[in-house]
């Protein structure tokens, strides 16, 4: 019975091989005629896809012969960390996805305040209102500084006629 880590390493290795194969397919669809140099826009992609497949195979070889070399300890405690917290990962991700979805509609300020509150929650804060208020204040300052002082465009939000 192979360990969990060994299965993950094998899966990652095959994902790299698959990436290389995907690149190769994309390369085959590119035109390859080249001018004076005799090589066109498909030459470098061909090289990179070949290289990616080779390193993927190398990773697979290592995974199947005793595992990848010189990894950090598998036990989180030995790395000075705690066990993986799915909820923390999900809160940070949710904040980023929510901002992405809302930035056009609700504008930079509100979507970033939401991002702020979600990330703080992911890091264990339980004071959602306080976090949202701080996030709002920060986003407002950033918004006015960037749009007024630096003339960088940031969306006001369609909800507010932006």
């Amino acid at each position: 019975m192979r360990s969990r880590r060994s299965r993950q390493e094998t899966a990652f290795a095959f994902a790299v091989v698959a990436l290389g194969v995907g690149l190769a397919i994309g390369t085959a669809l590119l035109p390859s005629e080249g001018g004076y140099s005799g090589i066109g826009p498909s030459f470098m992609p061909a090289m990179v896809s070949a290289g990616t497949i080779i390193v993927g195979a190398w990773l697979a070889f290592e995974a199947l012969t005793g595992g990848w070399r010189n990894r950090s300890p598998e036990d989180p405690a030995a790395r000075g960390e705690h066990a993986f917290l799915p909820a923390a990962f999900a809160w940070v991700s949710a904040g980023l996805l929510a901002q992405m979805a809302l930035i056009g509609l609700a504008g930079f300020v509100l979507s970033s305040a939401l991002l702020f509150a979600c990330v703080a929650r992911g890091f264990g804060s339980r004071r959602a209102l306080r976090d949202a208020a701080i996030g709002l204040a920060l986003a407002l300052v950033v918004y006015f500084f960037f749009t007024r002082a630096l003339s960088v465009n940031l969306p006001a939000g369609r909800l507010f006629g932006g």
Partner: protein
Amino acid sequence: MAETLAALAHGFGVALAPINLLWGFVGVTLGTAVGVLPGVGPALTIAMLLPLTTKLEPVGAMIMFAGIYYGAMFGGSTTSILLNTPGESATIATTLEGNQMAKRGRAGPALATSAIGSFVAGTLATVALTLLAPQIVELALMFGPAEYFALMVLAFTTVAAVLGGSAARGLTSLSFGLALGLVGIDGQTGQARFAFGVPELLDGIDVVVLAVGLFAVGETLYMAAYTSRMPETLEKLAGSIWMSKRDWARSWKPWLRGTAIGFPFGTIPAGGAEIPTFLSYATERRLARERDEFGKGAIEGVAGPEAANNASSTGALVPLLTLGIPTSATAAIILSAFQQYGISPGPLLFQMQSDLVWGLIASLYIGNVILLILNLPLIGMWVKLLTIPRPLLYAGILVFATLGAYSLHQSAVDLAILYAFGLLGFAMRSFDIPVAPAIIGLILGPLAEVQFRRALAISEGDPTVFFRQPIAATVLAVAAAVVVVPFVLGLARRLKRA
């Protein structure tokens, strides 16, 4: 020599203009303030502060970058010493003794030897840069595309083979970067590659988005998931920050030795300051009179690696400015900042825009001085930034990270790309895959392709051009050896055992 001095004097004239001096101060202040945040290294600091410089003249912006660069490094050392969390691999050696000194109430002298050592090393390394750069430019003017291509391949393989625990994983990271570098319009034929009809991808993938995605988003995801509930101890900055006579006596030799070790390592593509800082640490440990103090807060163990770190970061500017080849993640970000202004570093830059180059070099000298006079007295203020609660700190970092990506095209697509890189960064971190080769591959891959095709165009398609020219052939042979030799040795060892 006289020519160099005249150019440098002219550079000082540029850099000492009040407005440029102001940008230098702003850069050092911002760089330190962001660099001191735990988990934020110099590469990420520069990437996150890049949008702030969009309104500046190129010279002012470059001078501000020099300030940010030095400020970020000093900020990182502060965090390593007081919090025991190195922002990047180059300051791990500093944490070993620095945090022990802080635990014993000697945080002040630790920070002081780090700041003064960085000043000494940064200044000496800049002198070396001033003397060395014109020589390399002379040499580089004779290089053709084949030589450039060979040098870039060497940079790829050494960075991939040297960083992290294994060449296989370094090369995996490199191939990610090279693959991302293919995305967008091929500059020579106008052919779109791997853009999938997404307009935001036609411009290619921005190095800053990749760096911010891997370093800021990926790291934040990783820390939330694995370290957010770990207790932390911030060491207090009590007592005098000044070094005693004995501290000075024990520090000055490590500063000089650290500089001597760091600078040459910076100029070759050895993946940044990780190796020279550990070499310096090992050297000081061997030479120290109070050897049993090592592990319990020996000041030599802070002075040496800190000097090595700064000297090697300055050394990295030699290949960047004279050849246009970045040898560390931070240098890759600086190169992309140059490109944003339409400046391509290389020997021609020294001839065409000597104002800018020598203004930048002069501002390195000035940046070192600003760092010393600004940061030691203000150290208490920077330390306050470390008391911001973790949840608020990382929430704020992500707001700035997304802001930078969004402002590229004013498009939510860039936020999606940023998140995708965040997930990639999380996976790479979880699988112990170094991220620097990916960043260098992304920026250097397209440049290498241009040189490769140019070389073949000149030779009318004859591929032996890379082997007929002695410099190119030698460099390519070294590049191949870097990857193949350790692999073959490992295989031989296995066969012997079996």
